[in-house]
């Protein structure tokens, strides 16, 4: 039991291993899959999802949820697109876009942390607001033209992997290190693992929640930038539903939906895994329209398995404790006569 428990904990490693096995397995069936270009493509395709998932992760750590991230990504993309088209510099456009998404995250944080509105309500409402906002500022039309230079940024490579991918990977690794070492970054875990206990131990729960949602907005904003560069045009539906895939990616990568467990690398690996499955299905000639069903089934299975395992462990511990109590009761009653 202990070995399995340990394995569960190092979920990231397990999933990564599974990923490698999966890739190799598919490669055997269809060797084109293993070509560097294909793998590079999968990595690049996963960047947007990974970024959104990273943002979502912070919220999930606090045992919350954010269903507005897809809309935030869309907002960021739209703001970037409009700025670029208005002649604003690349840097300026990026700043505006990220600023907008950060602002959205801050509003979410305000609602959840200070007004104590349940996260599902706050972020669901914000989703509507942001989607509508997107329509308003674009006048309802897609943004078709993005400066070529901006689009080319996604093509820049370094040592065989695109610069964007490098940035995301390095960022994820660094953040994982930060979040494991630095006390101030641990606040999300405290809140998620035992919110009441955290309050008792003097932790500022409101502050932590506020930061979680703000960070989520920030990362969704980054995802929007990557989107604009890679995809090159911005339809109204940008980002729609992505937060759900992001949540699935996090869960796959080891983030617990009840809070307190998970690292940025979870989002990375989970995002990679989901994107790989999509590609795998293509290479196995499975029609793409089954992707969501499979993702959903995996999500449910993972959640249920987690539950089952926890139940089994609890029952086992209870039984052992009972035995222990019985034995000691039989030896001593502690009664004075």
């Amino acid at each position, binding site marked *: 039991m202990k070995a399995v428990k340990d394995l569960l904990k190092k979920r990231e490693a397990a999933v990564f291993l599974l990923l490698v096995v999966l890739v190799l397995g598919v490669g055997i069936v269809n060797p084109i899959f293993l070509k560097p270009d294909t793998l590079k493509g999968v990595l690049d395709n996963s960047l947007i999802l990974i970024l959104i998932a990273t943002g979502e992760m912070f919220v999930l750590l606090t045992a919350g949820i954010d269903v507005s991230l897809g809309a935030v990504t869309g907002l960021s993309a739209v703001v970037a697109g409009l700025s670029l088209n208005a002649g604003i510099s690349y840097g300026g456009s990026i700043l505006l876009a990220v600023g907008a998404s950060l602002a959205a995250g801050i509003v979410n944080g305000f609602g959840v942390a200070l007004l104590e509105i349940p996260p599902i309500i706050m972020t669901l409402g914000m989703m509507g607001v942001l989607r509508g906002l997107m329509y308003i500022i674009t006048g309802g039309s897609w943004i078709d033209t993005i400066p070529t230079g901006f689009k080319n940024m996604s093509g820049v490579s370094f040592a065989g992997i695109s610069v964007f991918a490098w940035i995301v990977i390095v960022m994820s690794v660094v953040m994982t290190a930060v979040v494991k070492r630095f006390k101030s970054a641990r606040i999300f*875990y405290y809140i998620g693992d035992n919110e009441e206990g955290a309050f008792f131990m003097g932790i500022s729960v409101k502050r932590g929640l506020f930061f979680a949602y703000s960070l989520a907005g920030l990362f969704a904003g980054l995802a929007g930038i990557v989107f604009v560069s890679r995809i090159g045009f911005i339809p109204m539906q940008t980002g729609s539903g992505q937060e759900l895939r992001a949540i699935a990616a996090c869960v796959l990568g080891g983030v617990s939906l009840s809070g307190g467990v998970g690292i940025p690398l979870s989002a990375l690996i989970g995002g990679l895994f989901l994107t790989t499955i999509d590609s795998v299905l293509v290479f196995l000639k499975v029609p793409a329209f089954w992707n969501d069903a499979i993702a959903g089934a995996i999500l449910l299975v993972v959640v249920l398995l987690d539950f089952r395992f926890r139940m089994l462990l609890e029952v086992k511990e209870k039984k052992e404790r009972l035995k222990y109590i019985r034995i*000691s009761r039989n030896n*001593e*009653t502690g009664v004075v006569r």
Partner: protein
Amino acid sequence: MGVEDQISDSSSSPEDNLAALKGIWKSFNSVAVLKGVDLTLERGEIHSLLGGNGSGKSTLMKILSGIYRKNSGKIIIEGKEVNFLNPSQAHEHGIYLVPQEPKVFPDLSIEENIIIGTKYSLGSKTREIEEAGRQLGFTENLSRPAGVLSIAGQQLMEILRGLLRNASILILDEPTSTLTFKEVESLFVQLKRLKDRGMGIFFISHRIQEILEISDRVSVLRDGVFVLNETAGNLDEKQLISAMLPDDRNPERVRPVKLSASDMDKPVVMSVNNLCGEAFDGVTFDIREGEVVGIAGVVGAGRTELAEAVIGIDQNVTGEVAVQGEILSRRNPGTSIEKGVVYVPEDRAAHGIFLDLKNLYTTTSSILPKLGRIFIKNAKEREIGEGFIKKLGIKTNGPDQIARTLSGGNQQKVVISRAMACGPRVVILDEPTRGVDAQAREDVYEIINGLTDAKVGILLISSDLEEIIRLSDRVLVMYRGRIINELSRDDLTIENVTSGAFGVIQ
């Protein structure tokens, strides 16, 4: 020899004391829980606090540790007067309360659990914690998640939290109620070590045996005042017990005593056979028609757990329960009610009443199927509600009044009405007059009388010893999960019941 003589003089001046509380008053909802109490703690001393439920010992310690604020009085720590607005401030002054239910972050490492909320960064105090842990006999690897700890381990972890915060005063609130004997022994060894290092420890407990074993001094709190403050070496169980008893022993029964002679002839309405669970073991007893069987005991005795097991809320038990000869297999609250066994829960707010709904809804909550074949017949339901309001003397505007707006006593009557609505054969009452004013209390006793007249068997769980004696035909004394004594009407004295509840059989 009056009680006052037993309070020894403070032999040290305030500056020598590690901690001194003077004239502490605390009221909740205009009910005074602490009435100007004084208490001191020396360095290197284990000072135990003893008292019945509601005596105020927990409240006093929560004031000391910054969780509650006193209404008046002084707190002096090492000669300086202090005023705490929150627990963190208490921590800064070296006071740490180990709560009855440790606050655990299960997915974080034990080490991190200990340094949460302090200014220390991860890993900066590892060696110190390890060393302190070793001295406490803490064997668990600090990097393992705190979820693996047993309750005993969690407590040690809380103590380590206090040590890390350089606590000079440690408060332990009922630390042993969930521990096995061995774990208690182990804990005591650690406490002695800490005391030898100069720490002052407040130890709250219900277990007289343990108190006498571990303490340097014992103070007994009763009704918000200290009635005893003495060196442990000078005390024995008898003295402690009599200190806790009210001044008027053996209260007269207000209502006629039921003739016990015919008791044994009445049919058995419920029998429990060798019930074993996590909190209790080998429980066997019968209840007869119209009989009141009292179960006396203190917190941790396992009485509520027993009741919950009887009606099937706790399914992890072995043993049998039979109602009128029929053995109930696969019990759950619903089937228990069908078979005629109803439970009036100890925690009214959490388990017994629907505070934000009409009181009528609570009254009828267990008999919904009887309110109508397809739809609920409103008229019929109201009739039932109004009937009980009248019968039980519930002070309310009517069945529609929201339960939350009723007083404690009336809320309790509503909960009882729910039980009575089921037409039960056995009613298990768990602390039926807790939080109930004096008049309502008498009303409840009348109600119980009425039930027994109607041949209903009553299992009465109560920490109010006077109550148990007044109402019961027989009393079972439960201590740490076992029924250690049975007292018939003739043997019932308050001393017998009290000492048994605290683990002492005379």
